């Protein structure tokens, strides 16, 4: 019985990291966008484009990393469009983001039907990312089989946390983008190109969202399904507020979410007599609860939602 408990604990922990990965990638991206003053509600659609593109490329070429590259690239294309609408045209960010999500949701499905699987057939599959054991470290008890035996994208997401932290807090880019999101006029007069900075941030956000989406079709499962990100993009929009736009707290938030998400799978596996569909509601309820908990204290970037225009 004890071995059983240990085994389940390990499964649960390993699952937590896997469930956290797409949310972590997406939220880090969202942090770039929002710190520079752009609410990117296009993240869900961008993820789906990443999932679909990554899958299609891998399906035809057979190279997982090329698929990831394509997913990041299409994510950047979506980011570019978001930047054009919200930064250049100054469209309402809510509306522009919803537009991008509509576009990504619909187009990902259409392209998938077009290139891979016409309606009615058996959905094709690819060989997804497999866990990699990190030599030397995978032998450590508890940590070994959980943190150090994971698909490559998990490592990528985890390594990105300190990198993003370094960018935000230690580089001119980080200082510039934060200033652009707090007081674009001040940044402009200090000689920072507000438009270019926001474009760059949205490109980064798009790339990360694209990779996050690819996780669903290339690591979590081996096929693409329409709408398969299941609202994770929106979870990212919530988590970035919960994490106060800090990459380290994003890691915490993503793991917390991943834990709740993993719980439902582990519960089911444990044979707990609890309706499976009710368990599936938990991650979403949890996200709303943490949002309620922090909403009053959240200090949004001061220029969020405000398009910047120079007079004259």
């Amino acid at each position, binding site marked *: 019985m004890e071995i059983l408990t240990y085994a389940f604990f390990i499964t649960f922990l390993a699952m937590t990291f896997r469930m956290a990965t797409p949310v972590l990638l997406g939220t880090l991206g969202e942090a770039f966008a929002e710190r520079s003053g752009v609410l990117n509600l296009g993240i869900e659609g961008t993820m789906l484009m990443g999932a679909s593109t990554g899958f299609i490329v891998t399906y035809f070429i057979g190279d997982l990393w090329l698929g990831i590259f394509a997913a990041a690239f299409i994510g950047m294309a979506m980011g570019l469009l978001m930047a054009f609408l919200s930064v250049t045209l100054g469209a309402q960010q809510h509306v522009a983001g919803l537009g991008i999500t509509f576009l990504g949701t619909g187009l990902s499905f259409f392209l998938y039907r077009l290139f891979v699987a016409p309606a009615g057939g058996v959905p094709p599959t690819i060989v997804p990312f497999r866990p990699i054991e990190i030599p030397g470290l995978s032998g450590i008890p508890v940590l070994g089989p959980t943190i150090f035996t994971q698909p490559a994208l998990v490592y990528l997401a985890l390594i990105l946390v300190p990198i993003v932290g370094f960018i935000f807090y230690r580089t001119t880019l980080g200082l510039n983008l934060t200033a652009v999101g707090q007081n674009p006029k001040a*940044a402009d*007069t200090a000689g*920072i190109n507000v438009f270019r900075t926001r474009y760059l941030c949205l490109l980064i956000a798009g790339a990360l969202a694209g990779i996050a989406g690819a996780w669903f079709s290339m690591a979590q499962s081996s096929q693409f399904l329409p709408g398969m990100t299941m609202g994770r993009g929106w979870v990212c929009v919530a988590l970035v507020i919960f994490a106060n736009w800090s990459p380290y707290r994003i890691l915490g938030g993503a793991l917390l979410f991943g834990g709740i998400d993993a719980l439902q799978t582990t519960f089911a596996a444990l044979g707990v007599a609890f309706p499976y569909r009710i368990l599936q509601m938990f991650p979403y309820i949890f996200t709303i609860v943490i949002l309620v908990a922090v909403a009053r204290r959240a200090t949004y970037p001061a220029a969020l939602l405000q398009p910047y225009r120079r007079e*004259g």
Partner: protein
Amino acid sequence: MVRRSPVVIKMVGITKKFPGVIANNKINFDVRKGEIHALLGENGAGKTTLMNILYGLYRPDAGEIYIRGKKVTIRSPNDAIGHKVGMIHQHFTLVPPFTVTQNIILGLKFPKGVLKVGLAEKRVTELSEKYGLKVEPRAQVWQLSVGEQQRVEILKALYRGAEILILDEPTSVLTPGEVRDMFKTLRSLAKAGTSTVFISHKLDEVMEISDKVTVLRDGKFVATKKTSTTNKRELARLMVKREVIFRLKKPKAKLGKPALETKKVSALSDRKLLALKEISLSVREGEILGVAGVAGNGQRELAEVIAGIRKATGGKVIVKGKDMTNRSPSEIVEAGVGRIPEDRIDMGLIMDLSVKENLVMETLRDFSDHAVLFFPKGVFLNHSAIDKYADKLISEFKVITPSRDAPSKTLSGGNLQRLILARVLTRNPKILVASEPTRGLDVGATEYIRRKLLEQKKRGAAILLISEDLEEILTLSDRIAVMYEGRIMGIVPARKAKIEKIGLMMAGTPLNKIGR
């Protein structure tokens, strides 16, 4: 005085057009090394536009700029900084949650893009000691006083090696004491060879600090004078073309009962800090009580508590003898309080709605007084009544608008304020709370609004006038209260008010501690 020093800036024939106005019309402007050169003119004369062109924020439609004798094209602030030109805007361009040092190094290049904050802090300290610009490099900017923030702005320019400083209305946010400190800094900078362009519309300070004055009017160059060879009266004439009436005549009005009283009112700011500390005031019918003070000392919070949009955490607001503390805005309007908010565009009006909609907004109940079918009063709007009412107010208050249905955002600043006045004054409020009623308006609109306020007083309204513009307070008020850090420092009759005394109170000395 440096006289034969070389010309560092030469602007020739600068023209800049905005839709509907020529902001700069073939302006010539020279500045020499080590000179403090005042750029004088009324609001809208084109001073700031000219300097924004020099700083690369605007591109001129025509004209040439020479810096140190070389013709240059300045496309962005970055270019300007490259030519060692620095600008301190009227509204500071600081990032509030950043530290002083972060603000100063913002936009600078670092090797490999990695910040060296420690090194920067050391340089900031050195510079601030050298020029007597005292400021703590690690403090967060939002915690600093306005005077300190201005020092950060100056340090920011100096850190970038600026040899030409442009200051846009730098004294408008400072106490008289802080102004003296800043002038000292400017003089020591001039001695070290820094040239300063000092934008202002205040004659006294131009006479005090500048070596030379250039006057602009309606976007055109008028004259450049040596300060030592001119005087206030001449400059005033150049500035407005006609002899200025320095003081409107205050009409006498019969003083009535106290109409608006605050008793030990306290309130929090947006940042949840105590912004009002037991404010007690009383305004009588037929009286204007002016509230002076540097911006950010609780004036806004005071107006908002009375207007009903900020909770008082303690004390009482009494309107015509009735306790109206923490009542809703509509109840307060019903009680006869007219409110002219500080923030016209974001609070006083809804810019996306039409002129007529903005006119009836506060009194919707009056325009829904008919029952339709089986619906009671108060459900449907009476559009024909609204149209009639709007037309009447538009002509009565001479609001210039294409039509009553035009969105308010198409109106000019002066007309927007007339719109608010029309809405508020047509109800003949017993009490009027006016915050910064003439800020940013041209002379014509300012005079119109001041006359209207005096008319209201004559009619017997009790007026609380909140303004940063000390001249406005002196011109209009019967009594003057000075606020500092959420407290009233003292209340003096306007007739006997000495500017030095008010200055001391604005800087935080209570009236009872000021010797005779």
